[in-house]
């Protein structure tokens, strides 16, 4: 068979579009013991699943903010460069400060995409806690709601057993917090990697349908 003359057409190498997720994780004292162990196992699962999807590994960017006593941030890297830390639990729950930090990181990240001509999807803020904020959280929650109303971010709040869901509900204007079934962090993070993978592959005009949530308790 004759060669197709269009084999001569060469393609441009453009950077992959990015989908940033800020993991905002409670590592306060109350998380110690089995909860933090399961959270760490969940992060390992998340890392493994994202790397198993070659395109998601290049398109999903993971940033982390942990709060337990102090607030600690790790800036965004694409999933293929991500190394989940082993988290230890202690201290109070400065959730407000952590959310504020994550919102700032996401804004900065979008700016750097713009400056560098990289396409991007609406970023996610994924907040997990088993308690209630011990700092002044109201203005951080208001900022998160405002940012979400302006379509700047999608906020997902997850409460582990013992979490103050009423307070947690103040961090999103679009969706209610979900309560984790037991300590099923692995299922939670599997769902998250699948969801981000779907978003990061959606084409213009598509809303990626998210996989079914199997890790949350049904509404009571």
């Amino acid at each position, binding site marked *: 068979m004759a060669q*197709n*003359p*269009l*084999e*001569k*057409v*060469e*393609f*441009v190498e*453009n*950077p992959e*579009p990015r989908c940033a997720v800020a993991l905002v994780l409670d590592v306060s004292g109350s998380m110690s013991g089995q909860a933090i162990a399961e959270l760490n196992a969940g992060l390992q699962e998340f890392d493994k699943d994202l790397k198993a999807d070659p395109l998601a590994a290049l398109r999903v960017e993971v940033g982390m903010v942990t709060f337990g006593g102090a607030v600690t941030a790790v800036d965004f890297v694409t999933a293929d460069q991500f190394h989940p830390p082993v988290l230890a639990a202690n201290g109070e729950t400065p959730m407000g400060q952590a959310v504020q930090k994550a919102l700032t990181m996401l804004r900065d990240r979008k700016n750097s995409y713009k400056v560098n*001509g*990289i*396409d*991007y*999807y*609406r970023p996610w803020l994924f907040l997990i806690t088993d308690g209630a904020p011990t700092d002044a959280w109201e203005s951080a929650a208001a900022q998160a709601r405002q940012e979400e109303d302006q*379509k700047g971010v999608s906020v997902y709040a997850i409460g582990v057993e013992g979490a103050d869901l009423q307070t947690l509900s103040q961090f999103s204007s679009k969706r209610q917090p979900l309560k984790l079934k037991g300590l099923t962090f692995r299922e939670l993070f599997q769902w998250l990697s699948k969801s981000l993978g779907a*978003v990061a*592959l*959606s*084409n*213009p*005009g*598509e*809303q*990626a349908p998210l996989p079914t949530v199997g890790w949350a308790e049904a509404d009571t």
Partner: protein
Amino acid sequence: MTIPQWHISGASVQGTSHLEKNVPCQDAHACLLTTRGDLLLVVADGAGSAERSQDGAGIAVKQIIASLESALQDGVSDTEPNWQALIAQAFAEALQAVVQFADSVNTPLNSFATTLACAVVSDDWLAVGQIGDGAVVAEDVDGNLFLTARPQRGEYANEAYFLTMPDALSYLSIYASRQSIRSLVLTTDGLLRLAFKLPGYEPSPQFFQPLLAFTAAADDPEQARSDLVAFLGSVRVNSRTDDDKTLVLAARVAPTREHPDALASDEGRGK
């Protein structure tokens, strides 16, 4: 006046993600060389999230070809405003056709969401209209490639502009200019990241020149179309995009040539 001769070829091919999700090819295209020698090229990309977008794309393409052909029958005055008005009217009629169809089947208009881009070459005028993230690239007589209208995008990579959105006609971008064109390429968003250097959308000569050379040399329309379909469905293309993809190509045939193509018409959708 001699009637200009063109080699014309077009194809729309289903993306691999559409194949997996059992969604049809939602791209559509059409080409027409009118009896008075006006070249009309159109592409449309139905929205992935809209359930009847392939119908929206098909109806819009069919109507805008009919509107342009009819408007051009009496010739167009040589002014930019006249061309702009002609393109705007054709888009309004294309939208109207989709609205009427949606009403007739009692289905919301946004179920038919589609982008639409058209190009007209008439005598020494080039006129282009576009809503959404298609792209129209022209080659002038000196061989320079240029993008006539930048693909319209929202902030996010999966946001798009559609003919069916509220106030859509206010987003219509029109390019009309008196200049001689040697060739034209229309494409939908599936190929943007392969064909343009982002973020400036500079057309890549390594992508477009071989396409144009292929079109200029394409004496046999059947063979050209089959080469084009094979290319758009190739592993090489599919490894870089999972979306539907469309190419419509036209290259002016040198007047000395012995192959005056008959009226070329190719209207349709990929499989």
